[in-house]
Structure formats: C-alpha cells, structure tokens
C-alpha cells in the first residue's frame, strides 16, 4: 500500500513539474514581440545596416551591381531580392561561437574579431573556424519592406534547398 500511495504522490509531482515547465516557457509578450519590420528602400549599396530581431543583430547589406555580377551561383542563391535589388539578410552572429563579425567595405566581406573567421558578402564562410555560413532568419517580403520572423515563399524556398542554416 505504501508503494501505491507513493505512486499516487508521484503522479501529483509530475503534474506539478508540468506546471513548472510551463512557467519557464517564453512569455506571450516575448513571442508576440518576435517580429521586426525593415524598410529596404532606405539602404545604400555596400553599407551594412544592423537591425535587431529577437535580441539578435541582423545584417542587411544592399549589394552593388558589380558585387552581384561577380557572384557565383551559390552566392546568388542566398540573395534576397526586393524591388529588383539584391540584399544579404543574415543573423549577424559568427557560426563559430556567436561573436558579431565586422563588415569590411573594401574587401566586401566580414571578419570576426574573436577567432579570425571570415565570411563573404553573401554570408558564406571563407576562412575557418566558422563551420557554416551566416544563418538566414525567416523573412517575408511585402513591397519594399521585409518582415523578420515571418516565413514568406522566398524564405521557404531557401529553407527547402537547405541554405538558410
């Protein structure tokens, strides 16, 4: 009987643990604030803009015509095209250990000061230690604005081809 009572008490403990788990979930206000709208029409070519989305820095870089022309297919596949212009949109955290790389306008690339990792203007890693390209966040294009946090068809296509993460 002692074991049976222990089991019943155990069920109660599991119930309490469930409530405790729920108490650690992100709050509704945190989730609701997970969207950022960015106006792309104000961007200047080859000037990096950093927006904040879900607490993380988001790199937005309008590419010049020359940069686009010099790109290979892999690089172009990562471009977000808004109003005919090519943009890089990526989470600005190095995929190595999460530092914020700096953009070097002359080299058209990013250098991470922490461990020397490098990325090109499309966010593809060009020098170790980063193991993978910069992450592309969910985005949705509406006219000349982009909503971060919502997955539009262009993002879904990128995600399917496996280049977002």
């Amino acid at each position, binding site marked *: 009987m*002692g074991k049976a009572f222990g089991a019943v008490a155990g069920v109660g403990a599991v119930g309490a643990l469930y409530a405790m788990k729920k*108490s650690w979930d992100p709050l509704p206000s945190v989730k609701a604030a997970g969207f950022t709208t960015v106006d792309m029409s104000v961007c200047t070519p080859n000037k990096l803009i950093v927006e904040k989305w879900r607490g993380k820095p988001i790199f937005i870089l309008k590419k010049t015509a020359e940069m686009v022309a010099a790109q290979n297919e892999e690089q172009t596949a990562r471009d977000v095209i808004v109003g005919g212009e090519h943009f890089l949109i990526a989470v600005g955290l190095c995929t190595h250990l999460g530092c914020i790389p700096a953009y070097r306008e002359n080299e058209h690339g990013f250098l991470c000061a922490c461990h020397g990792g490098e990325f090109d203007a499309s966010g593809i890693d060009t020098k170790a230690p980063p193991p993978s390209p910069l992450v592309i966040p969910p985005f949705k294009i509406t006219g000349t604005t982009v909503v971060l946090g919502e997955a539009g068809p262009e993002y879904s296509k990128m995600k399917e081809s496996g280049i977002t993460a």
Partner: protein
Amino acid sequence: MAHFEKAKSLNEWLDQRLAINTLNRVLAKEYWIPKDINFLWAMGMVLAITFGILLVSGIFLLMYYQPNVDLAFDSVNFTIMQEVGYGWLWRHVHAVAASVVFLIIYIHMFTGIYYGSYKKGRELIWISGMLLFVAFSAEAFSGYMLPWGQMSYWAGMVITNLFSMGSLELNGIVEWIRGDYVPAQAFLDRFFMLHVLLIPVAILALIGVHFGALRLPHVNNQNGEEIDFAVEAEKYKAGNKAASKVIAFANDFMSKDLFVVAVFLVFFFYLVFWNYGFAMDPVNFDPADGLVTPAHIYPEWYFLWSYEILRPFSKDIGLVAFAFAQVIFFLLPFLDRSPNAVPANRRGLFSIWFWAMLVDLIVLTAMGKLPPEGIYSTIGLVAALVFIALWIILPIITKLEKKL
C-alpha cells in the same frame, strides 16, 4: 584516515561514508512517538509541508517578480498573473499558503497550550516555536510589501511608524528602517531581501532547533502520561507493537501525518482555486499611492488580535500593550506555575483560562478588522484588558492548582 572495507552494495558504500543506516534508525525507525495521540499531533507535519509549498511557489514567483516601485505591481498582477504559464497558480498558492499557515500555527500553539506541552523539559520547544511564529510573522509582513499595492504601502507606512516608539518620537529609526522618508525604493528592496533570503534562512535554522528541542523530552501525549520510552521501545522492537505505548516515527507516525496532510490539502486547494479573497485582499489590487489612504485599512487576519491590543489605547499605552502581547506568549512555560503537564480539562481553573484566552483572541481578531467606532471600540477595549488580565492571573491560578 579511517579504514574502509570494500563495499558490497550502494547502501553499504553510502553507510560507510554518511552513516545513513544510523541516521535512518535515529531519525525514523527508532524515533519513538507516543501512540496515544490525535490528529492535532500532525500539525507539525502540515506546517512543514505548507512551508515547503511556500518555498516552491516562492521560487517560481521570484523568477518573474521585479523589486522596483514602478514595476513591482505590474510584474505581479500582469506578468505573473496573466503571462507566465501557471504563474497565477504559484501566486494563489503562495498567498493562500501564507495565510493558512497561520491558521495551522495557531492550532499548533493552542494544542500545545491545551495539553501542557511546554512544561517539564519542553520549554525550549515552546520558545523555539514562538521564535518561529515571530519569524513567520516577519516573513508574512515582508512578503505583503512586495506586490506594492495600496495595502502593502500603507501597512509598510503604519508598521514602520511603530518603531518611532510613541512619544519618544524616534523618527530617525523609522527613516533608517525605510531608507527614505516614506516607504519607497530602498524600503522595497530591503524587504525583498529579507523576504527571500534572510528570514527564510532564519526560519530553516529555527525549524532545526525546534525539531532538535523535541528529541530529548519526546513528544507529549494526549493524556499527559509519563512514558518510559526505553521500556516501551523494547516491547515494540520485540514485535509486541500492539501492547507498546510507542510507535516509530516512520512509517507509523508518518502514515497518519500524511493522511492528515492529505485532508488538509483538499481544504487548501479549495481555498486556492475558489475562495482566496481572505488571503488576497482586494484593496491590494490597487497600486500603491502615497497620496491616498484606503477607506478601510487593517492587517491580515492573523495580526488582527495584536493590532487590536494596540488600537483602543492612547498612543504610548497602546504601544506598551502591543509589546506586552508580542512577548508574553514566550513566557508561558514560566508563568504557568503548575507542575501538571496534562490536558487543560483536568486542570480546573486553567481549563477556564484556556477557553477564555481562545475566545478573547477571537474577539480581538474580529474587532481588529471592524471599523473602530461605537460598540466595536468598547468591545475591543474590554477584550484587550481581558487579555492583559488573563496573563496577570495565570501565575496565581496555576500556583493554586493541586498537583495531580
């Protein structure tokens, strides 16, 4: 370094290092409790469980509470009550447990008074218990500040003003306690610290002392019978459990304790979900406002009796009476001059004293909440005087008591 044999089981390995089998024997299997007891003996366990509930629910509140005068109210009433998953549950549980714990403490205290469980070597159990009562009172009061509602603010204002010591006008002390001219940010921060750290630590230490003080004199029993625990324990260990006057703490006593706890929890959760108003005063759902005093201001129910002892008198006499009420219960083991550690109903005049004290405290409690006007003031004054008189005559009537 002591010599260690290679252990053959995990139990043995632990026993070599922590003496768990000895602990189990001393604290549970051969910790002897009298058999002649009733459910009132389970109140200690009910209190321990309620304290555990307060601790756990408090941990979850602590994770979202903001000790800031601008944010505290909304962090409690919006973030915790509306946004955090089951945050409302922790808050209701915490508030109701904080109130109900005092009901159990009072039952526990009056059980001790009725059965004379503060005598003959049990003085320290009583005194450590009273220290726990004071610590719980401080814990309840400091916790009451945290939602930073109207009752928090004005209770903070009134209670800290008591420390000006009436006509001594020690306003410096009041400002020192508050860290400001009025209860404000510094006040909220320090009471937050007291509530979540210093007082809980003190309570845990006092619980240890309280349990320790029980060990040598043993728990009292329902009829005040003197039990030879060594002899009775031998009977029990020889397998003659039915004839023995003692039972083991675990699982004998504990199984009864937990059944009482279970019944208590039904009552407790009913209050948590459907009848919580007594523990969560509506007035405290108005944010603190230093320029508006609520129309009716009163402490939580468990402080009402001592509040009422303060109220009917002039400022200085009221404070003296209040101080008297705070310390007098500590002295019970010494004011009761009778050697009889038996139930009150066998103690003649003390039996009347017991019920008079209980009823007087209930009257004081009721009057403490009612507006201090007309007949209620008069009743309150009489009840306060009766309270003081009862303590004055206690040594006399117990001295006259015949030795049983």
